[in-house]
């Protein structure tokens, strides 16, 4: 934080700073995610750029007060561009000892620690497994500790409502939120309106939460509990209309937009799975767009229904995560064999097996690119940020329909749940999605191909004169009839590969940020974009010659990629896996790369990547 002081309209002065990172932490039942989301909305309304990272346990309600039940929400906001939710919080709000214990090591030295003093009783400390009381054992000496009796003060504020003690205590997240609004001078009116809408019909609850929010703010104003308060001026974002959006919301909107622009009916077949279910929830609200959402009996039926819908002429999509991807793989090869368009979204999570369902990972790249039996090529795209999910969803639909083939989108738990401001796109400027069903029976052969894309015709049931059969058995090159001819099979294997390879003609030239050649190139894919971007910017500020390239198209890869890699002396590939992109790059382009791999279920911090860049670039050569 910088220390430039500027007066504000109130009695107290506020320090103006250019960025801040705040983390709310508490029991998963404490309303921490709610507080985080409201703080985000208020921050967006204040005009800051921002990025968020909700981090919660898989257990819906783990035993209260235990380490397993701690839920967190981190936001970085700034008066300049923000690429990540931030490495270390400047402010930590801990609602109980367990939340403190889990999160304190991330708080930057000297950072502000806001504690709910009422939850530091002996029983609370025991549940959190604290041998000594952190409030007394000196372990918090390096921080600005703000101890507040949030439970008592909330109850006092709600006294007139005569609520049962437990009910009143539930509003303490709004008290904490009010405190953080004061600390960063956020307006409360948006949140007050939101409370009214959210709890419509529950008058007591509305009043309780409104009072608690205002009480938290007023408490800070009256007691001057914070040594100083802050102001983060609005960011100079690219002009336009903005909204805040999560990755899963953006995917849903991207699909609906693609359906709307193409005139196709959107059909989603999905089975609930963390962290992908929100796309199903989201799309099921778009009924008046003609969107059909089908909650199938399992992951297999989900993709099966989508293949059926696609055969019948719909824009079919299915959403899942790693375990579901494994189950879908046989059906995916049927879509490859029958050359039907559909989009499969894999929102990656930490594995193997059930792993850590709510934690992020990039472990499915090789699965997406190569993880099917036989020669089964598939287009693979990856989204790099929550807002980018919109473009990637749209692009996936465009490619699927144009090339008549399945497309896999890789997202992950981090960007699925994380959110950022999104500049609304000009819908007219999006690439068109031209769909032409085959209608003319004259000369119709189900596997006769478009000479440019090698796509076969989309001939949907109900079209007079186009009756034909498709299926999983090998096809004759033109007629699509079953064929066991060895030479035909070899030609078909090559045709299916070539069809996907030609998608590269549809990919724009690759962008390199920084010098176009020279020293170090950091290559990434997917959700590491924010951390890599921050790290590369900081490295460049230090005077290091570091460039950045981020891949959206993982299969096929851009035609110019090999040539670009060849222009750099060193290539660094940070990934939240054990080096899957590194393996692909080395295998395809024979380019040695330096790997940076961490698999902790968490996104990279920018510092982790910066440290590696410095290690590489500043070591004697």
């Amino acid at each position, binding site marked *: 934080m910088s220390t430039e002081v500027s007066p504000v309209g109130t009695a107290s002065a506020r320090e103006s700073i250019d960025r801040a990172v705040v983390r709310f932490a508490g029991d998963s039942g404490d309303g921490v995610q709610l507080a985080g989301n409201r703080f985000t909305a208020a921050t*967006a*309304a204040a*005009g800051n750029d921002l990025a968020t990272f909700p981090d919660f346990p898989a257990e819906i309600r783990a035993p209260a007060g235990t380490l397993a039940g701690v839920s967190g929400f981190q936001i970085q906001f700034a008066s300049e561009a923000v690429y990540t939710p931030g490495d270390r919080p400047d402010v930590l709000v801990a609602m109980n000892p367990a939340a403190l214990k889990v999160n304190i090591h991330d708080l930057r030295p000297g950072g502000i620690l806001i504690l709910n003093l009422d939850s530091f009783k002996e029983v609370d400390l025991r549940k959190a497994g604290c041998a000594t009381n952190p409030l007394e054992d000196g372990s918090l000496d390096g921080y600005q500790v703000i101890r507040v009796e949030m439970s008592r003060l909330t109850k006092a504020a709600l006294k007139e409502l005569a609520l049962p003690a437990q009910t009143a205590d539930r509003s303490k997240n709004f008290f904490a939120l009010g405190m953080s609004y004061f600390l960063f001078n956020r307006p409360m009116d*948006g949140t007050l309106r939101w409370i009214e809408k959210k709890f419509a019909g529950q008058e007591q609850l509305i009043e309780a939460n409104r009072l608690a929010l205002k009480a938290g703010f007023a408490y800070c104003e009256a007691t001057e509990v914070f040594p100083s308060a802050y102001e983060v001026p609005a960011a100079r*974002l*690219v002009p*336009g*209309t*903005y*909204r805040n*959006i999560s990755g899963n919301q953006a995917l849903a*909107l991207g699909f609906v*937009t693609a359906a*709307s622009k193409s005139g196709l*009916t959107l*059909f989603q*077949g999905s089975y609930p799975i963390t962290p992908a279910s929100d796309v199903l929830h989201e799309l099921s609200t*778009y*009924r*008046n*767009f*003609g969107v*059909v959402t*089908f909650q*199938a*009996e*399992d992951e*297999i*039926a*989900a*993709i*099966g*229904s*989508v*293949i*059926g*819908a*696609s*055969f*019948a*002429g*719909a824009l*079919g999509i299915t959403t899942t995560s790693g375990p579901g991807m494994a189950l879908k793989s*046989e*059906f995916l090869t*049927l879509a490859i064999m029958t050359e039907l368009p559909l989009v499969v979204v894999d929102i990656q999570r930490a594995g193997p097996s059930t792993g850590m369902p709510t934690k992020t990972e990039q472990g499915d790249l090789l699965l997406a690119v190569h993880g099917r039996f036989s020669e089964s090529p598939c287009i693979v795209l990856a989204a790099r940020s929550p807002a980018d999910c919109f473009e990637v969803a749209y692009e996936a639909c465009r490619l699927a329909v144009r090339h008549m083939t399945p497309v896999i989108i890789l997202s992950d738990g981090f960007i699925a749940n994380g959110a950022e401001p999104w500049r*609304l796109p000009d*819908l007219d400027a999006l690439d068109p999605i031209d769909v032409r069903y085959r209608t003319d029976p004259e000369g119709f052969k189900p596997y006769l191909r478009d000479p440019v894309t090698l796509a076969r015709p989309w001939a949907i*049931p*109900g*079209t*007079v*004169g*186009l*009756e034909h*059969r*498709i*299926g*999983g058995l090998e096809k004759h090159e033109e007629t699509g*009839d079953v064929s066991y001819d060895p030479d035909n099979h070899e030609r078909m294997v090559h045709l299916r590969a070539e069809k996907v390879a030609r998608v590269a003609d549809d990919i724009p030239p690759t962008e390199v940020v920084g010098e176009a050649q020279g020293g170090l190139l950091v290559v990434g894919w997917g959700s590491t974009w924010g951390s890599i971007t921050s790290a590369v910017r900081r490295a460049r500020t230090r005077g290091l010659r570091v460039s950045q390239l981020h891949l959206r198209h993982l299969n096929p890869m851009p035609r110019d990629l090999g040539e670009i890699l060849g222009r750099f002396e060193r290539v660094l590939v940070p990934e939240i896996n054990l080096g899957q992109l590194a393996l692909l790059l080395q295998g395809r382009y024979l380019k040695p790369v330096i790997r940076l791999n961490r698999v902790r279920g968490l996104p990279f911090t920018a510092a982790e990547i910066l440290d590696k860049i410095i290690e590489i670039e500043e070591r004697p050569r």
Partner: protein
Amino acid sequence: MSTPTALTKKDLVSSQEVRWCPGCGDYAILSAAQQTFAELGVPKEKFVIVSGIGCSSRFPYYMNTFGFHTIHGRAPAVATGIKVANPDLSVWIVTGDGDALSIGGNHVIHLIRRNVDVKVLLFDNRIYGLTKGQYSPTSEIGKRTKSTPFGSIDRPLNPVALALGAGATFVARSIDVYTTHLRETLRDAHGHRGTAFVHIFQNCNIYNDGAFENIREKGQREDNLLHLKHGEPLVFGKNQDRGIRLSGAFATEVVSLGNGLTEKDLLVHDETAPMSYAAMLAELQPPHGPMPIGVIRRVEVPAFDAEMRDRIAEFTAARGPGDIARAIRSGNTWEVT
């Protein structure tokens, strides 16, 4: 829009050479389906036949309609997607005892409980044919096959009872070579709005020949088949001199007519009766009684695809058609200038 033109059986025959073993019961079912489809008044291009894997699942290749030979056990999922995406189509699933009841059991029960308007033709030969002769989920206990040289110990599954358990709104049974009956049954299935589950006994003359001899062969079947007809008493036998009556509260017994017993003492078939009645019929089979064939249960329940279409229409009428430019602006937006 095309108007239904009169089709003949020949119109439904595809150019593909049929490759089932000579003498397979599938030939008779194919012929019955081609004949029946020609008579349904449905334009040819509106038929979609979806199959899984197995001998029976080659069926779509031989029908000159739209067809989809999918993967093992999963035809119901694909058929559901097709029907929901375009409810105007007449969608038929062709499957077998292994495909539908073993690897695909989960999909079958969910198709039925949802009551998706598709027709399921389950060819039951009580054996795995395409993989060359292993026992199937409907094989009888003690069956000696390549994978059970000392006899199987699995209890067989009763397809009709399974369908009823899943809440089937239409269940019927027929036999491959019982051509006229099979065609009538297919017509009944077509007429039902919802999942029509048709259990068809089909002889595999290579790996399980004679499995249904007592209900399939002339001279035996007359005494072993119970023809179900809505509103008529459960009478069977070459001389129509035996019948089924209630014995106690939840069981049936076979009785001979005469000696004071008349048709009035027998159960009267009711396709719409409570599930417990249909379940009693499902349990009937030789040697303890006759094998009921025909429509076992037929009740009207809204079909899934129709419900889906109606809900979307209602929602659209209430909210107005979706506007994507407005949708992307939903939630809190702000201007940066």
